């Protein structure tokens, strides 16, 4: 039962991403051609909501469900990994119009060819794990 809350949050996430069409290849294409504000609006409002929420959490020193103070880990400092990794990710994102969340959501929706994206993504993750130590971070 302790997992039920995560399934519910995921369920809402899946519906929001599908009904906002952020899972749609079309919307990603449109975004990269600057032909619609829709995707920028979604990401922008999500980030503004997140910034305000996290500031409130920090200011009020809110505790999580287990009673421990909410601490959100800082991202590791660095540059190369973010620029280069980001670039690779962006190439894939615009090619197949899906990022990791939507890959799962689209499969759940029964769009079966997305299975090839998932296989590729697992393979790409595996390749990173193998060559990690040889890459600049």
């Amino acid at each position: 039962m302790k997992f039920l809350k995560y399934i519910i949050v995921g369920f809402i996430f899946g519906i929001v991403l599908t009904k906002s069409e952020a899972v749609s290849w079309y919307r990603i294409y449109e975004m990269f051609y600057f032909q619609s504000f829709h995707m920028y609006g979604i990401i922008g409002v999500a980030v503004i909501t997140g910034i305000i929420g996290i500031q409130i959490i920090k200011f009020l020193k809110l505790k999580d469900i287990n009673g421990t103070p909410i601490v959100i880990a800082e991202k590791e400092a660095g540059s190369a990994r973010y620029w280069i990794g980001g670039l690779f990710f962006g190439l894939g994102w615009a090619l197949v119009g899906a990022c990791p969340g939507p890959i799962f959501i689209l499969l759940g929706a029964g769009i079966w060819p997305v299975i090839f994206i998932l296989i590729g993504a697992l393979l790409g993750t595996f390749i990173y794990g193998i060559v990690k130590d040889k890459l600049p971070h």
Partner: protein
Amino acid sequence: MEHLYVTWPWYISGFLIGLIMLCLNYFGKVFGMSSNLRTLCTIAGADKFADFFKFDWKSQIWSLMVVLGAMLGGFVAVHFMYDSSNVTLNPDTVVQLATLNIDAPNGKIAPDALFGNQVFQCPKLIFVLLIGGILIGFGSRYAGGCTSGHAISGLSNLQLPSLKAVIGFFVGGLIMAHFLLPLIF
């Protein structure tokens, strides 16, 4: 009820995505989707090949449950919340897609040209989807996160590394959409 079937406005959707992230923070977790790919690799036995995959995957079951919920959500949204007005694109986009022989949405979430069942008989399209997946999987792990982990969680926490990654996402996406996609289709 009708409002639930048509395209949800960006200000509602964005707000809800922000709340979902904060909700996971309240559960003591951090919102991020691509880490599930690493977890799945470990479950499949990748820990025998690289130390990167040696971790207690059971600590990530909560995240796999988010994935399971998201899949159910996608199923419900596509099958029971459909409206023919969905995915109404900029008319210029539709014209542009036609020149690439990519079909207009007409309510569909994904183009048949890339995601129709004919893909299973088309090695070129399978290859395209696999390559896209590899770029996503490799890139998100190299960058340490994807759209959820960096663009939403990271930027919300004012993380400079996340800003670098998100700029990288966009530069990569622009290169693909403007220079490479026209060569592929």
